[in-house]
């Protein structure tokens, strides 16, 4: 009994230490970010690894999420004979909620785990220590470009995801389910608000991009330098980032909800 309580207390302590370490890591990184902009080549390489390689997954994800939303909303909307609102329903959901969140989850799975295992392997093979010996700051050289690339590519990926989703809903809605084409677009135009919906989704995606890439780099940077440690870092990145993004999304939605 006492042993169980002590175990719980210890794992809570470990969690708190990890969490605090993550905050310290984030703050310590801040001054490196503007300096990293002076080495655009490093950022471009990471943009390729993090953004361009996630493109196909994101586009497929968006297309099919939009198509499913159209099918699913049709069965409810048709009961109120208001299937004309499908366009507005799908695009509001995509732009505000599903776009940022699902893109961030895909991003954590595709790019986050890759970053964590790459940086973890650098740690395991002592490349980070070697850099420090050569007076190359690994925070500058490894961490900052990856985080910046995440912050830059997440809003772009989210926009692509949402656009593909609306396109998928358009295909299913107007071609299969008989929603009027003009009503589809005019309802989107009338109901989706530039500031309330598009801007809040954009803000969310930036925050999610920053947290997802920060967590991935942190997990990799401080992983145990063993093969098991590297694989644990990749797994933990996906799990922790997903939970954190879902939690953060609830808070951000509450903050940016339109006043009725």
């Amino acid at each position, binding site marked *: 009994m006492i042993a169980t309580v002590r175990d719980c207390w210890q794992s809570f302590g470990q969690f708190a230490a990890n969490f605090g370490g993550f905050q310290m890591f984030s703050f310590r990184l801040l001054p490196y970010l503007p300096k990293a902009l002076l080495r655009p080549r490093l950022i*471009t*390489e990471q*943009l*390729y690894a993090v*953004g*361009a390689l996630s*493109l196909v997954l994101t586009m497929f994800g968006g297309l099919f999420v939009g198509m499913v939303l159209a099918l699913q909303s049709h069965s409810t909307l048709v009961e*109120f*004979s*208001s*299937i*004309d*609102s499908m366009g507005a329903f799908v*695009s509001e959901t995509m*732009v505000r909620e599903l776009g940022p969140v699902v893109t961030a989850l895909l991003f954590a799975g595709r790019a986050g785990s890759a970053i964590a295992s790459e940086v973890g392997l650098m740690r395991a093979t002592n490349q980070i220590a070697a850099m420090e010996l050569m007076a190359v700051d690994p925070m500058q050289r490894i961490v900052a470009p990856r985080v910046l690339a995440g912050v830059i*590519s997440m*809003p*772009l*990926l989210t*926009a*692509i995801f*949402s*656009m*593909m989703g609306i396109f998928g809903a358009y295909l299913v809605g107007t071609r299969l389910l008989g929603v*009027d*084409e*003009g*009503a589809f*677009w*005019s*309802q*989107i*135009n*009338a109901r*989706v608000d*530039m500031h309330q919906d*598009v801007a809040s989704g*954009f803000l969310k995606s930036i925050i999610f991009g920053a947290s997802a890439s920060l967590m991935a780099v942190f997990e990799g940077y401080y992983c145990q330098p063993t093969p098991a440690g590297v694989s644990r870092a990749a797994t933990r990145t996906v799990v922790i980032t997903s939970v954190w993004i879902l939690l953060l999304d609830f808070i951000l939605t509450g903050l940016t909800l339109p006043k009725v």
Partner: protein
Amino acid sequence: MSAVRAIDISVGMFILLGLVSALFLVVQTIDPSQVNAGETYVVEARFDHIGDLKIRAPVALAGVTIGRVAEITADPADYRAVVLLRIDSSFDNLPIDTDATIATAGLLGGKYVELTPGGDSEMLADQGEITFTQSAILLENLIGKYMLNSSPE
């Protein structure tokens, strides 16, 4: 060198695609049916009240969409709403006494313009005007009237 170029190109494509998508989300008005529409003609209809009729709402004949609302303005001279209807040219045989009604699709659906042809032998021309119009039925007004009428006698 060529590997670096390939990375540059795909990063450039990625960012370009992202910006185009963002632009699409911001504009969200691209209407493919508007781009490749066939021959159309425009008639004008004046309403006392249009409810929440929107631009590009359907114009229907016997329930079938034959056109779109092209423009909505208010006329300061007679305090009425001026609605321009863009109608498919294959329906150029609408009589001049055709009646235009603002109807609702379903109980909660969007507003559209329903045309009911009259019996005149003269036809509506391009830039013509539909003189017989019926305003939108405002559900809340109806409910208000009903509640007043059904008060205990």
